[in-house]
């Protein structure tokens, strides 16, 4: 009998609900039954509520079962799941599931499909085509393709990637750097992690293209230390890529050099801010630098540096392989291409959904997500991480689009959507926004360092019912000051969640004062 390929995700989220135990049980059971299996530890398909999601390769395609528990494994073998047999947990062909079929997976095309550390698998699924195309072009032509694709930075600020690359291309320097921002600190986001664990070669390919395009020979991937699995995956993938000469002194035999190093952060949210990240990479405190100079001109060790988010860099191989116009054909307005959205919080079917810009939040949360996990009504949705606005349920028809969200004083950020049910207390969430800022501020400027502490105290007074009207006034002034006078977006955007809570949920700031909550 031929060897059956069985996929059990090695993604950290899948591991967190038992994928390792399931993989071991499958291996044991197969051995006991004399069935030859090859267990592939793939990335996650992104349907996190189905994890551990086991897939079996059959003549009829890849059949899924999930969520699988260790105690289900014997029964799955009984049901003949190695041939796609019927079982209570059977999901049918994964590619046929509505949740998958409705997506446009350009960046996440291979995540969950391939063996993340097999370069052969990567190539068999279209990998390295972008890099090969880039090697046939001049650096300027690669940069132009990225510009023409309309790609904007996926790390939060939405700055046009091609323009940033052009600045670095035009800068004269002995040494330039490519830095990948894999700090992914925003609550509600995990796309960078899933990509690094599920398709690390894609990030390597994107970074190599960036290096060749602008004449940078060295790249760093700065990964937050909360992501040990992603760090390990990247280190292993870099070693494989070096051995295959995808990285090194002569990238794919081109005579052009590009090397990569993965580095760990050390538990500081502010190190996701690009200049703080550069300080950290240089071995210093993660204190924000004043801009200008732009990192594109004076970045890492003072050299011209591209700093891009994981998803920005990972979008590039598709653009080079398939054409800028194909990428740009997706999306609306000035938001081109696709966005890998992350659905989390109190949600029935959370996970990763990659779609062209323009889809509404409601479609994502209700159709894909199935509403709250608690079954209670949705009350608030925070979009774009801890510095993003809280939106009330009636506003969820807003399309996913940088400008549309800015128009309602919200932001898309890194594409995280966090759902809260009607038990949420929005005054507490506002207080948390300040507390988070106070804890994670780099301390360089006063509006943020002191303002955040004052803000948390002020919201507490409002909650306690102490001089409410006066303190609401103080809060307004403080928000204005932080917005206007902070050096970076940490202090500058902390007022966004606070003001949105005040605007949409004023009743939570007017509740009869209760006996003070323990703190």
């Amino acid at each position, binding site marked *: 009998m031929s060897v059956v390929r069985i996929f059990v995700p090695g993604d950290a989220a899948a591991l*967190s609900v038992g994928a390792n135990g399931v993989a071991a049980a499958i291996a044991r059971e197969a051995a006991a039954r004399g069935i030859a299996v090859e267990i592939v530890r793939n990335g996650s398909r992104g349907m996190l509520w189905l994890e551990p999601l086991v897939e079996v390769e059959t003549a009829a395609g890849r059949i899924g079962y999930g969520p699988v*528990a260790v105690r289900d494994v014997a029964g799955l073998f009984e049901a003949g799941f190695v041939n796609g047999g019927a079982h209570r947990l059977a999901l049918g062909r994964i590619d046929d599931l509505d949740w998958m079929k409705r997506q446009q997976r350009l960046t996440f095309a291979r995540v969950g499909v391939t063996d993340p550390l097999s370069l052969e698998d990567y190539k068999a699924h279209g990998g390295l085509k972008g890099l090969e195309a880039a090697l046939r072009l001049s650096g300027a032509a690669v940069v132009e393709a990225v510009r023409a694709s309309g790609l904007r930075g996926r790390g939060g600020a939405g700055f046009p990637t091609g323009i940033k690359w052009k600045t670095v291309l035009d800068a004269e320097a002995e040494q330039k750097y490519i830095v990948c921002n894999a700090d992914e600190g925003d609550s509600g*986001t995990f796309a960078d992690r899933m990509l690094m664990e599920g398709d690390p070669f894609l990030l390597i390919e994107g970074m190599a293209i960036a290096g060749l395009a602008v004449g940078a020979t060295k790249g760093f991937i700065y990964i937050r230390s909360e992501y040990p699995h992603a760090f390990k995956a990247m280190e292993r993938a870099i070693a494989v890529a070096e051995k295959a000469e995808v990285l090194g002194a002569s990238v794919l035999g081109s005579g052009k050099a590009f090397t990569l190093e993965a580095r760990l952060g*050390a538990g500081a949210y502010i190190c996701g801010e690009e200049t703080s990240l550069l300080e*950290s990479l240089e*071995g210093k*405190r993660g204190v924000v630098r004043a801009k200008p100079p732009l990192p594109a001109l004076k970045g890492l060790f003072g050299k011209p540096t591209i700093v891009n988010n994981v998803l920005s860099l990972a979008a590039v191989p598709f653009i080079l392989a398939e054409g800028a116009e194909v990428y740009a054909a997706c999306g609306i307005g000035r938001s081109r291409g696709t966005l890998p959205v*992350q659905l989390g*919080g109190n*949600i029935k079917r959370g996970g990763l959904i990659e779609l062209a810009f323009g889809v509404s939040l409601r479609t994502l949360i209700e159709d894909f997500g199935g509403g709250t996990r608690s079954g209670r009504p949705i009350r608030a949705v925070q979009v774009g991480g801890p510095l993003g606005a809280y939106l009330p349920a009636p506003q969820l028809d807003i399309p996913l689009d940088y400008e549309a969200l800015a128009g309602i004083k919200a932001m898309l950020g890194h594409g995280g959507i966090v759902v809260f049910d009607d038990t949420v207390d929005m005054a507490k969430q506002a207080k948390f926004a300040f507390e988070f800022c106070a804890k994670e501020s780099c301390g360089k400027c006063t509006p943020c360092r002191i303002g955040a502490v004052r803000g948390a105290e002020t919201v507490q007074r409002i909650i306690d019912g102490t001089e409410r009207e006066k303190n609401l006034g103080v809060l307004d002034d403080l928000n204005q000051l932080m917005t206007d006078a902070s050096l970076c977006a940490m202090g500058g955007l902390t007022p966004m969640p606070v003001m949105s809570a005040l605007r949409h949920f004023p009743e939570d700031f007017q509740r009869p004062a209760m006996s003070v909550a323990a703190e």
Partner: protein
Amino acid sequence: MGLPAHWDDGHAQAIVEKLKHLDGATLPILHALQDAFGYVDAAAVPMIAQTLNLSRAEVQGTLSFYHDFKAKPAMDRVIRLCRAEACQAQGCESLVEHARRHGIAVDDHAAAAGASLETVYCLGNCALGPAAMVEGELVGRLDAVRLSALIEGASVEDVIAMAQEPVGEPA
């Protein structure tokens, strides 16, 4: 994971030597020391400063800036509980309350209760929260029963496996 070794200047210096060639070597060195000894001893500061030709103040500044580097070894198991927004929406604060019943106050490493609870903000498991990280392993859908098991010293593997036991509909 093996138990961290006791601080040893020679071993520490060897780690520093091994990594000093890296660009911006300070963080990789501090991580390697933290991994080896479970904390970064004050003796590391002059050692790194001298080897990398930096001022002590600069190394001390870096060491003190980051949450990951500890000045003392942890006495107990450290449970890093995510308390960011997506996990708040899934009830992580009730786990903080639950830990109190074990005599554990969050972010207080003083109490010798067998384990300590440390706040982290997001572990990238926001759809399967509340999330925690223990001994480098990610735990999803944490609940009171399994938090108790972690506090009482059950292996992380077992606690993850417990997530797979059938449970009723979420409250």
